[in-house]
């Protein structure tokens, strides 16, 4: 059961890598024939990183130690999103 979840995460990570590999410094990105703002791409990556981190924490039995999980993971994901976006638009 756990292996299945990990495989799904791996697939997602590969997908994210494929997306990010095609990125550039443009504030707007083209995905499947439509243009998306870079912050939306960063938010997608940030949420994915947060989810991945939570899986890793669970694997090490550390997830229970996070207080207010909703707020914590939301703040973490938002921080990652903003960090990526700052790097992106700051280039």
């Amino acid at each position, binding site marked *: 059961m756990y292996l299945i979840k990990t495989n799904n995460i791996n697939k997602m990570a590969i997908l994210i890598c494929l997306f990010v590999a095609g990125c550039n410094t443009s504030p707007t990105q083209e995905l499947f024939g439509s243009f998306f703002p870079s912050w939306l791409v960063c938010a997608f990556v940030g949420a994915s990183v947060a989810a991945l981190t939570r899986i890793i924490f669970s694997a090490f039995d550390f997830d229970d130690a996070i*207080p207010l999980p909703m707020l914590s993971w939301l703040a973490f994901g938002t921080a990652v999103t903003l960090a990526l976006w*700052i790097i992106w638009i700051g280039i």
Partner: protein
Amino acid sequence: MVSSKKMTGYAFLVTSLLLCVLFAVVATCLVERSPRTDDAFIQANIVNMAPEVSGRIITINVRDNQFVHRGDTLFVIDPEPFRYALDQAQANLDNLKADLPLQHLQIGSQVATAEAQGSSVEQMQAQLALAQSTEARLAPLARQGFVTAQQLDQARSNVKTSSAALEQAIHSQNAAMKSVRDDKPLRAQIVGAAAQLAAAQRDLRLTEVKAPCDGQITGLNIAAGEYAAEGKALFTIIDTEHWWVIANFRETQVPDFHPGQNAIIHVLARPNVVLRGHVESLGGGVQPDVGSLTNGLPQVARNLNWVRIAQRYPIRISLDQPPPELMRIGATVVATIQR
């Protein structure tokens, strides 16, 4: 051990929140420093190619989407009727010019006639003077009886006749002088005919429609044989000599802009290519959503909108070195103004 895990968990939460706030502040500052919009597109001048003369097209030298240079012949309208019109205008001008010497001869003849009438006046004046002196001589002699009363009456009659003849000669001279014609009307006709000739030459020249600028043909879907009407556009040329970007920025950002500011343009067809440009001018206004007049009264909609969406104004950004392969009217770009 349990306490340490909890402490680490709290540290994770606090650090995430602090980083979140810090990054939000930094991101806001970055965005404020370099306002950007993806509500932007590439624009260029277009020329609707309409002929200035009407006629059937006999040759089209260009194809749709072809690049042309300034002065290239695009299509040719049948010049035959315009050649005839030119010949007619030339013949009309030559005819009028040929009339000019004849007109001068007539004027010379009329001037001579007027001068002859002037001589006649002098002759009549001399006759009147002779008649008056004759009467003056005879009058004292008649009182002394040296001449008959009939001779004196004859002399007086001569004076009156000479006076009437002089008056008639003066009128004739005036009439002759007034009848002397001028060549100004004919010269005006010649000027008019020359203008008609120039217009005919121009019409003939305009049967060859040439490109007014370097550009790309678009919207060409006609063939030779089509009738071209004066002033009716047949296709369009995109002026590829000048390209610019129209970026619609929010009204809250526009006051911070001024002509000359540097801009970075990402053409989304090739996001890796970064173009440079500068603000050329700021939009002066857009059509407002409300305030239009209906039947002479302002139309004001009733609403309870708490959130108002900021108006956007077009900012014109000229491109410094636009790559021709990416320049297409309407292409989506992201414009970033560097303050």
